[in-house]
């Protein structure tokens, strides 16, 4: 029980400075000590970075030792972690040593980046397949969405814009150029709807922050015995 009380007090006290920094007038001088706080908080936070590495190593080492299916992949993963770690540190300390920079560059620019970018690029295939399979006028909602999406898609590519290029560039008729329709959709109805969602969401965030700060939050993680 005392632990929970301790945590509640800690949470509350941790928030006090920034709360008062905001509500007190400029003359209070609280803002001036901000440059002293930021650099120190960074250090506390950054100390945690080894956690991910430890966890990942632990999980994969487990697989390698037990010879679980695909253990060689896990081995590759562990090797990759430490090789990349070493290279990153080395290239900072020896920026002039050619082999270090070359190896680092090879691993970063020619293995890491292509892998990362390509995995993400698979989504291009999926969105085309989803457009065919899922994007259907099943309901009024879906129909509205589809119509808007088609206008936006046509309005943002040169070939789509070419359809209405014969319309004048100024004057009332120019409103019906596809790129202007797209701009209008984005700027008026989309922007307003997003703002409506935002208002709700921000109030929700504020309420949640308040509950966290005052330790009123309930639910799995917060109810766990400590």
């Amino acid at each position, binding site marked *: 029980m005392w632990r929970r009380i301790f945590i509640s007090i800690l949470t509350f006290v941790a928030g006090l400075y920034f709360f008062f920094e905001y*509500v007190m007038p400029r003359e209070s001088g609280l*803002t001036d000590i901000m440059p002293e706080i930021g650099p120190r908080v960074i250090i506390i936070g950054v100390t945690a970075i080894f956690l991910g590495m430890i966890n990942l190593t632990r999980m994969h080492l487990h697989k390698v030792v037990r010879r679980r299916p695909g253990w060689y992949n896990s081995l590759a993963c562990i090797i990759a972690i430490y090789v990349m770690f070493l290279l990153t540190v080395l290239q900072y300390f020896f920026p002039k040593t050619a082999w270090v920079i070359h190896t680092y560059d090879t691993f970063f620019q020619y293995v890491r980046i292509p892998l990362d970018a390509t995995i993400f690029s698979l*989504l291009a295939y999926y969105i085309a397949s989803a457009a065919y399979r*899922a994007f259907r006028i099943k309901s009024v909602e879906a129909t509205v969405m589809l119509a808007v999406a088609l206008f936006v898609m046509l309005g943002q590519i040169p070939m789509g814009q070419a359809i209405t290029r014969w319309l004048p560039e100024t004057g009332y008729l120019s409103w019906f150029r596809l790129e202007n329709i797209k701009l209008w959709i984005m700027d008026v109805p989309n922007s307003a709807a997003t703002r409506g969602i935002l208002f*709700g969401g921000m*109030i929700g965030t504020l*309420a949640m922050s308040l509950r966290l700060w005052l330790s009123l939050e309930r*639910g*799995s993680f917060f109810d766990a015995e400590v």
Partner: protein
Amino acid sequence: MHASYTVLILIIAFTAPIIYFIVTARRGKELYIRPIAGLEAIDEAIGRATEMGRPVFFSPGLAGLTQIETLCALIVLNHIAKLCAKYDIRVVTTIPQYLVYPVAEEMVREAYVEQGKGDLFSEDDVILILGQFPYAAGSVGIMHREKVAACFYFGYFYAESLLLAEGGSQVGAIQVAGTNSTTQIPFFITACDYTIIGEELFATSAYLSREPVMLGSLRGQDVGKMIIMFLILVGTLMASIQVLAQWEYNWFRELLFK
């Protein structure tokens, strides 16, 4: 920026109702919360899975343990697991965060034990897959292998939403999603049978758990929304009058801002 006097008043105006309703709810006052349309879909989907005798799939999203979306998702998971336990079917869950994993496992186990079906629960049904794309690929694989009859996606999702929802529709599952990540909602709407949008996710977990703090907070948030609506209506009116009367500035706006 430092708070002006108007902002100080607004701080109180937004904070006080939330605290007030949380306190009254905890004292035992019944607070109304509107039913969320997607919730019947959950029952319906589980019902169909029961008829077919196939498991259901659940994903709590990619967010971390301390993010509110994940906490809401876990509450929904608990509810779904209870229903599944009642009808003797399995629920398969994949988790992308190692901190969430033990909590989720506990939630599912608890639900089965509570319904007296502890033997139906298997630890292998809660699966940890780290990393965004490995998670998506692994989850889709599991949907195919298990031939799930229903898929539920609750929590915060990123680009993997489309992969999951496509995978679910390929196996022909009934899908219900609930997320407040605006950028991913379109993909759930297209591929899922029912989508719980934005803040409704929080309301869902409050509705299911009947936790007084959450119910009270929702009520307080509604008051906050009303304040915003009121301010917008007055501000808009004043802005219109400003145009008509050709004032130099909208004094209501200045009042709020100063």
